[in-house]
């Protein structure tokens, strides 16, 4: 496997401490108490905003990103130079219309794009945190976001929107800060990570830790990277984001630049070549330890466990309007997971919409061109905006 270009790799490395876009710094006087029982201070949150906050401060939408996403939702990514990961959804005239709404997106705690994470420099030592950073949970990420939102002078978010791990944050927001969330849109997500998903994450983590260049998590201090391990982790994970039908449609059993098998372990098949490319592209922009931390946060996620094993209790008495969306071919966060959330919201007497969208694109469908998702997002936000009195 070819090693990625170092230039881009260095760009990614710089983002951990000096990200493109805005930074909110929280000093020792504003510590973040983590679920692990440790106070994190100082720390920083890297974020972007799009659109304009109205005078009433009632039109703010927080967009939460997934495992390997970042705050650059609707503007070019500073590392890859590619468009933001949700530009199809967010922008002027788009379903999340930045002519109308003020969109905030921040890098999650434990991430590697400028919010404090294992790749950030520990001010106490001057060295990257590595594994000395306490373990992070989804509620920790959300608490950090709440501090950012407060810093921005916003009392109540008009909406919190996100897919996959972003959807977990949406649900956590609704459970933890019910009076500060007017509407919520959890997409292709679950209220707890399944055993199967924990299993897949463990495969990815073991691939990273099995790479000798991981160096017990100290690779940055020792000037190396577990690129091969991280690439394998990404390849395995990437399969779970697609579907059998999507893989078949895209690649089938077609050969890559050849007419016959080479009788070697070369990437004979297009699907192999594609996965290798995905792995290589990923290691250019993502930190291996961050991958460990963020996958772990997802594994620990279980809202009901924090509320006496009752998901309905987590949302009891909520006045937030919910719109839950799943996709038919998503086997990572199947419709049954979304339905469980919907049943709990029904039991809690919440206002909830739930749509399952027909798509063969698997879990990744939420990031792709799915006109029904756009129509539903637009319609849901539109009706919530009317109720909120947003012009």
């Amino acid at each position, binding site marked *: 496997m070819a090693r990625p270009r170092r230039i881009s790799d260095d760009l990614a490395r710089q983002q951990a401490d000096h990200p493109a876009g805005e930074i909110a710094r929280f000093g020792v006087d504003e510590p973040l108490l983590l679920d692990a029982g440790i106070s994190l201070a100082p720390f920083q949150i890297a974020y972007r905003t799009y659109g304009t906050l109205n005078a009433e401060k009632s039109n703010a939408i927080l967009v939460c990103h997934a495992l390997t996403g970042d705050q650059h939702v609707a503007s070019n990514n500073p590392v890859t130079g590619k468009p933001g990961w949700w530009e199809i959804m967010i922008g002027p005239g788009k379903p999340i219309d930045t002519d109308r709404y003020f969109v905030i997106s921040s890098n999650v705690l434990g991430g590697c794009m400028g919010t404090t994470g294992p790749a950030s420099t520990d001010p106490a030592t001057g060295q990257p945190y590595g594994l000395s950073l306490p373990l992070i949970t989804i509620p920790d990420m959300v608490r950090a976001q709440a501090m950012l939102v407060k810093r921005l002078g916003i009392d109540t978010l008009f909406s919190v929107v996100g897919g996959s791990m972003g959807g977990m944050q949406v649900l956590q927001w609704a459970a933890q800060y019910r009076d500060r969330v007017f509407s919520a849109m959890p997409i292709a997500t679950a209220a707890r990570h399944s055993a199967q998903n924990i299993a897949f994450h463990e495969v990815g983590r073991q691939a990273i830790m099995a790479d000798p260049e991981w160096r017990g998590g100290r690779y940055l201090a020792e000037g190396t990277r577990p690129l091969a391990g991280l690439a394998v982790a990404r390849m395995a994970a990437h399969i779970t984001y697609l579907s059998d039908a999507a893989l078949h449609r895209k690649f089938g059993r077609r050969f890559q630049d050849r007419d016959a098998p080479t009788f070697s372990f070369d990437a004979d098949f297009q699907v192999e070549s594609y996965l290798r490319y995905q792995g290589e592209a990923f290691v250019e922009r993502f930190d291996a330890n961050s991958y460990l931390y963020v996958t772990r946060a997802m594994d620990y996620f279980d809202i009901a466990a924090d509320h006496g094993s009752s998901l309905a209790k987590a949302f009891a008495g909520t006045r937030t*309007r919910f*719109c*839950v969306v799943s996709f038919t071919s998503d086997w990572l966060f199947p419709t049954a997971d979304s*339905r469980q959330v*919907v*049943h*709990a919201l*029904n*039991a809690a*007497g919440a*206002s*909830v*919409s*739930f*749509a*399952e*969208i*027909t798509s063969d694109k698997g879990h990744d469908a939420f990031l792709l061109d799915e006109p*029904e998702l756009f*129509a*539903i997002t*637009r*319609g*849901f936000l*539109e*009706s*919530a905006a*009317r109720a909120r009195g947003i012009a």
Partner: protein
Amino acid sequence: MSTAGTTTDLTMRAVPGPIRADYLVVSRLIAPGSKVLDVGCGDGGLLKLLRDEKGVDGRGIELSREGVNRCVAEGLAVIQGDADTDLAFYPDDAFDVVILSQTIQATRAPRVVLEHMLRIGKQAVVSFPNFGHWRLRLQLVTRGRMPTSENLPYHWYDTPNIHFCTIRDFVDLVREVEAVIDHSTALDAWGREVRVNAPWWFWNFFGEQAVFKLRGKR
């Protein structure tokens, strides 16, 4: 819920025209500002009518994905679900009124569905096609075949309507579940109300569909 009612509605959406007769009857039975659950809400026609005319806080359940997605895109709080399985998740007295419009005949367990409605809602409104209507009776007697009509266009082998009943059958079920009838109306083939003081047999013969407002004994 793909029912005869939904099918009628599909054509009505294409050509904006008169509102379904049973919708108007149902709407009259709903107090303004009520919290309403419409079970089998189709493309949300009734919920929209209730929202716009009565200012209700409306929610819906619909089986068909197309129906749900259209409702949600129009800002209605509708979930993809099944009357037979999903009503169990709602707490007691969660709604002022639970509506089952032209759907009871498509449920697997109409009695269980009705009992859930009476539990979840302080009141229940049920509208259904009357299989005792004289034209359907005539078809069975003269042609010896399962009846079809404009409102019930399916053949026996492809119909989603698996539990047809007559008005009298429904009244029996209401007694079975020990509910109280607060209001009842039968509509003829033209959507006009059948004479109010007529006996049940008359309604059962001339009513093409019926609308009942019920409440459970508490």
